[in-house]
């Protein structure tokens, strides 16, 4: 992964240190957790065999990074996301897949508090979505990077880091920029950037602020090889450090690095489990193909 990406230039001390942290197999550096029983997992749902049996009181669940209870979104009569019950544990690395219009972005935007649910509730880091406490914990890397026209990349980094109460941000900002290959453009306005450079700037900003949960929407769009591999490495490092990651993507090659796979189709949950058990081609094919 990252090692091969950087093999075209002499390895610096920093690169070697990163290599050491992520070796030997970055994809397995984040230990795969066993597939958890999720609130909705079609394949795992079994009908009750004994109606008269008295259920034993279940022990209280430990706090979760993300929970959704009947979370749904509709635009007028058009449903975007059917009621969804999810529980994502702290430290999970989740891939969210599905065809275009399957509800991935809708779900992420609701979790980050940018979109108001039509029904249901959700929490992030045990706080209601959109609350100040939730916003303290969650970093969102959107599919369309957004920047101020009047701030350079460096000033964005400073502004965002300081607004999240971080004072010692400079070294991390320099390191992140160096990693994604943005060091030479730190004093430029992102509005003048190409799509790929904008994405790199957005990645740097998303990682410079403190977070426990990171929601990422189509992060590989427009990225060159350096940027793509730097992002994968950053995700692995953040996951190793205990962060919860939810990555919505069409890049099936990145799914294998996840500990859990959630697939949506037509706004409904169609798979929730171990990525190795999933038929990725079927889960990501478009609606027309499905109906056909």
């Amino acid at each position, binding site marked *: 992964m990252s090692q091969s990406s950087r093999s075209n230039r002499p390895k*610096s*001390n*920093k690169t070697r*240190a*990163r290599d050491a*942290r992520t070796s030997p197999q970055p994809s397995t550096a984040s230990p795969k957790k066993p597939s958890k029983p999720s609130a909705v997992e079609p394949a795992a749902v079994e009908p009750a065999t004994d109606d008269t049996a008295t259920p034993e009181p279940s022990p209280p669940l430990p706090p979760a990074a993300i929970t959704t209870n009947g979370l749904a979104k*509709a635009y*007028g009569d058009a449903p975007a996301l059917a009621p969804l019950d999810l529980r994502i544990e702290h430290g999970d690395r989740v891939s969210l897949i599905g065809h275009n219009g399957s509800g991935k972005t809708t779900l992420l935007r609701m979790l*980050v*508090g*940018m979109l*108001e*649910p*039509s029904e249901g509730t959700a929490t992030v*880091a045990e706080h209601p979505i*959109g609350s*100040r*406490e939730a*916003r*303290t*914990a969650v*970093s969102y890397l*959107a599919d369309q990077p*957004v*920047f*101020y*026209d*009047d*701030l*350079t990349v*460096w*000033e964005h980094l400073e*502004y*965002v880091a*300081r*607004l*999240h*109460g*971080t004072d010692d941000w*400079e*070294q*991390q900002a*320099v*390191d*992140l920029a*160096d*990693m994604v290959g943005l060091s030479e453009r*730190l*004093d430029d*306005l992102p509005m*003048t950037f190409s799509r790929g450079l904008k994405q790199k700037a957005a990645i740097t900003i998303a*990682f410079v602020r*403190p*977070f*426990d949960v990171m929601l990422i929407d189509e992060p590989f769009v427009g990225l060159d090889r350096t940027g793509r591999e730097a992002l994968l490495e*950053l995700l692995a*490092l*953040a996951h190793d450090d*205990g*962060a919860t990651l939810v990555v919505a993507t069409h890049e099936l090659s990145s799914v294998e690095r996840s500990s859990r796979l959630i697939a949506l189709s037509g706004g409904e949950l169609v798979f929730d489990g171990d990525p190795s058990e999933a038929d990725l081609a079927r889960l990501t094919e478009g609606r027309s193909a499905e109906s056909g």
Partner: protein
Amino acid sequence: MRHRHYVLVAMTSDAPTATVPSDAAATLRELRRTRKRRRLGELDWYDVAYRVYLFALVGLVLVVWVSDAVDGAIGDTVDTVDLLTRGPAVIGLAVVAAFALGVRSGADGGPISVELADIRHVLLSPVSRRTFMLRPIGQRLRSAAFAVGLGGAVLGQLIATEVEGSRTAWAAACGAFGAIVGATFVATAVLSHALRVPRPLATVLAAGAVLWQGLVAWGIWNDTTDGLARIGPGNLAGRLALWGIDQRAVDVIAIAVAVAMAGAALSLGGRLRLEPLARRGELVSQLRFAATVQDLRTVVQLRRQLRSEILRTRQWGSVRTPLRPEPSATVRARTPAPTTPPAVTPRVIWARGVRSLRRLPLARLARIALLAAIAGVGGVLTYDASPLFGLLLLAAVFLVGLECLEPLSQEIDRPDLTDSYAIERGWIYVHLLVAPAVLLAVVALLGAAVATAVDPSLALGAFALAVPVAWAAAVGPVVVTVLDAPSPPSPTTLLGTPRDAESSFVPPEFAGFSTALKAAIPVVLSAVATVPVFVARFSGDVASVGRSVLGVVLVIALAVLWVRRRDAWTVKTRDFFEAGRAAQS
């Protein structure tokens, strides 16, 4: 059909070298005819007639009202001989300014805009671009000449109330002059664009022309020049505007020059660059929509984009690149989030605001200075001449406010970013007002200096009122900007209906009314800023002026409080309605 055959032949592998289809112009005409027929077929003629009727009625009432107000305001002491001697050079400044603006606009890719679809499908096809561009350039020339000409005619009949000559003659002369000004702007811009005049050269040409005419006007006005030094590029056109008093055949040259420039613009229209045409095509469609819904702030922002006015990468006054640490051996991918929302010092926001203002481009700073000067002159005229000039003062200070609010505007236009910070939005917005307030204070003092230069006896009053007037005038722009921020999320409206279905329950009459109200309220709020000037004019009592300033300060404080607490008040209002519905059920 022949055109389609040509395309098919060109697509085959053994097709000969493509030749320009001979019937392309006919195809283009047919396409335009069809689209026009469809457009006209969709028009609601009754609605159009009603709008024209309303426009004419309101326009007529305004003209009559202003004519009555102006009649006698200047006095009957205007010396026509003096006017004919000194007037042309001063009036000619308008046509030279149109030339200057046109050269700059053309260098920035203006002034023509074409539909994106036309660029993709027509201008990229082997159709003569000159043939295609004749219509948009012709339309632009026509509309500019008509609009400015109409303004000139209205002004002309107003002048006739103060100066000798018939209303008709004055209206015709000033109308012709206005048409020349409008056509000069468009023709110069097209020529500058087609001839690829570089921006620096355009600036030099524009500044040179204005300086030349300005020096001539200054010299003639003060009787300090004679001979060739009295010749300026706008003199003939300026003299044409005075045909209400006296007609001179040689002035027709001004019309001939304008017509020649328009002809040259039409003939070189095929050389306009596609990239700016495409950029402007997109922006103009947004601009039309914003103007339709009376979204003044968006109109101003899009106008800036149309002028290619981008913020500076390097801040004014920055002399060195910042020192930064070297990349370290290990990268820290994550800082764990704190358990409670962080406490943030306001200095972070203030510094962000200062950076924003230090990136304003020179053109914008010049515009702010010009508006400050106009406000200064408008204030003096409101006090000395006629209360009508209060409108000039209000327009200038309102626009200055909009220009100076860049930091707040940037934050409001990116709610995704603002809402990702674990801080109340209102707190950020209020602190983003600090830097613009400082800039406004500086601009206000500039306006006061101009007012003092116009009438030195008003120096004390001008400097005393400048800052509160400028801040109060910014209340409207602040409100119009903050209103663009999304409300705190809620699935239902105040009435309890689902928010997604809200629009379907709003009758069009109410929607139109609320749109007009939204456009009017900020202007009304900013109008409060002019109250001390009016109080000074009509009472002249220092104590009364002081009380009016206190009132203005109270309005400013209320506006700041509203910005800070808006979200909380919205939520409280919703809760109140929610509680009411719960009690009823």
